[in-house]
């Protein structure tokens, strides 16, 4: 949209200036402060961390940075384990989400145009209803004497109720459940745009339906799969509510450990260092996935 003329240019400068100031103050600055605090040391008092610069006797302030928190993270097996299991849980959850989402997206893409709109709406709708409540719904379902266990016992599948809640299984379930729409939508978007005569062409050239799928549909839908993976894996990495409500005491994930360090142990520098590690992991994963996506799209 062009806003030509002097008044337009003035307006544009105001808009650009105001939004840039906001972004610098409320997005960039907080991140820099997190990095700064991660290099300080915990102390008693308010704020509970040492200042990064100290005005001593000399002319220049003394840089009082420490990498203690990072050393702790790298050397303490708790944090290493949290790091590894965050990646693992996010990856397996994203994979399970993919397995459920792909057939759904495929079926929606092949539905009639009229049905498609309704089916998509049904996928998107849960996303708008409270995330917290949807996670909470599973705490009731997975309870030792909840509907799932009751049904299983009534059907005679198990005699003793299963421990479902507060397990890593429940965390996977919660992630898959919450993020399913984010996997369905991008895959659907790619499949919907695909030229179905390509599948017919493959069959015409001698491919059985499953071969046509493997050789044509699947490779062509990979951009959607990558995008979906990005939208599930990345937020799952830093997830807090799901491991907190559904996970057991031994389900370690970075987001949850950060929360504990901050609220329970009041170790702000360590929490900040964990935040920096989490941010780096997220940015690096996102970068790799976006690169893979771009390579796919260029191909």
């Amino acid at each position, binding site marked *: 949209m062009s806003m030509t003329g002097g008044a337009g240019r003035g307006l544009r400068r105001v808009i650009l200036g105001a939004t840039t100031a906001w*972004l610098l103050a409320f997005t960039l600055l907080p*991140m820099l402060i997190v990095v700064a605090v991660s290099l300080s040391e915990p102390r008693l008092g308010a704020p509970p961390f040492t200042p990064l610069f100290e005005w001593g006797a000399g002319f220049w302030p003394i840089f009082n940075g420490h990498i203690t928190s990072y050393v702790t993270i790298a050397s303490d097996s708790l944090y290493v384990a949290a790091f590894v299991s965050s990646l693992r849980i996010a990856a397996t959850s994203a994979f399970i989400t993919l397995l*459920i989402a792909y057939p759904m997206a495929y079926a929606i893409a092949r539905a009639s145009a009229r049905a498609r709109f309704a089916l998509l709406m049904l996928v998107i709708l849960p996303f708008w209803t409270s995330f917290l409540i949807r996670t909470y719904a599973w705490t*009731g379902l997975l309870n030792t004497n909840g509907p799932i266990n009751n049904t299983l016992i009534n059907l005679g599948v198990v005699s003793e109720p299963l421990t479902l809640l507060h397990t890593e299984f429940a965390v996977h379930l919660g992630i898959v459940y919450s993020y399913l729409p984010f996997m369905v939508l991008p895959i659907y978007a790619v499949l919907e745009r695909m030229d179905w005569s390509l599948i017919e062409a493959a069959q015409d050239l001698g491919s059985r339906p499953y071969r046509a799928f493997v050789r044509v549909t699947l490779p062509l839908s990979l951009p959607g799969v990558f995008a979906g993976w990005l939208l599930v894996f*990345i937020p799952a990495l830093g997830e807090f509510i799901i491991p907190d409500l559904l996970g057991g005491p031994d389900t370690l994930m970075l987001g949850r450990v950060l929360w504990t360090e901050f609220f329970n142990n009041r170790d702000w520098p360590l929490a900040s260092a964990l935040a920096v590690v989490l*941010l780096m992991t997220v940015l690096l994963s996102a970068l790799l996935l976006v690169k893979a996506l771009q390579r796919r799209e260029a191909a």
Partner: protein
Amino acid sequence: MSGRRSVALLSALAFGYAFLYLPIVILIVYSFNDSRLVTVWSHASLRWYAALLENQQMLDAAWLSLRIAAVSATVSVALGTGAAFALQRLKPFFAQRGYEALALMPLIVPEVLIGLAMLLLFVVLGDTIGWPERGATTIALAHASFGMAYATVVIRARLTQLDPALDEAAAILGATPWRTFRRVTLPLLAPAIAAGWLLSFTLSLDDVVVASFVTGPGATTLPIVVFSSVRLGVSPQINALATVIVVLVAVLILTATLMTRPGQRDGRRA
């Protein structure tokens, strides 16, 4: 498509939707359960809805959450509209990319990190300039800051679809830039602005993590109340509350979607 394959696809759909909706449906059903034991069905009653209405703490929290959500959503779309325009026009390329990275950062940064970062900012600001006091204001500011990212994406998507010829036409017809914006661009952007507002509003209303970090004494939002309650286990009152929220949101979103459904393509490129 062979019959067997369409059966397989239909079952995949049925499974997917059952997975998405059954937990919510069961939650709703149990909200009408009279028993205090949430897992045992006794008989239907509205007991927990009545209890909810008398729970002053919950009602206060809900009212506060709504106000925070409305304020932060409004700030979000104002900023998001500005950012969408800035992204459209910003040159050179690296400035545009830098701006974009900053504006969209909250989309991929985990909530715990946003919460921590915003809190640290408010602590440092409080120490240096004595503002803001932690409470509703800081929650609203934090929510506006990540809401802006979502609003920017939604509004920008619409803005890039708008036909540039439209405001050229308006300019030829003698409209000043500001009038063009108000009479041509803004009405065409309205659905996206509404959608961005709704999105920011919902995200604010739903947020527990960021709010937990940046809140201060006395400012307890609904999600914070719900979260502290459900951490202790299942509660029938929360089931009732959840039902109310789910139904409200569903009605709101369905109305909004039907109003902006793909039939309305005015002003977009063919």
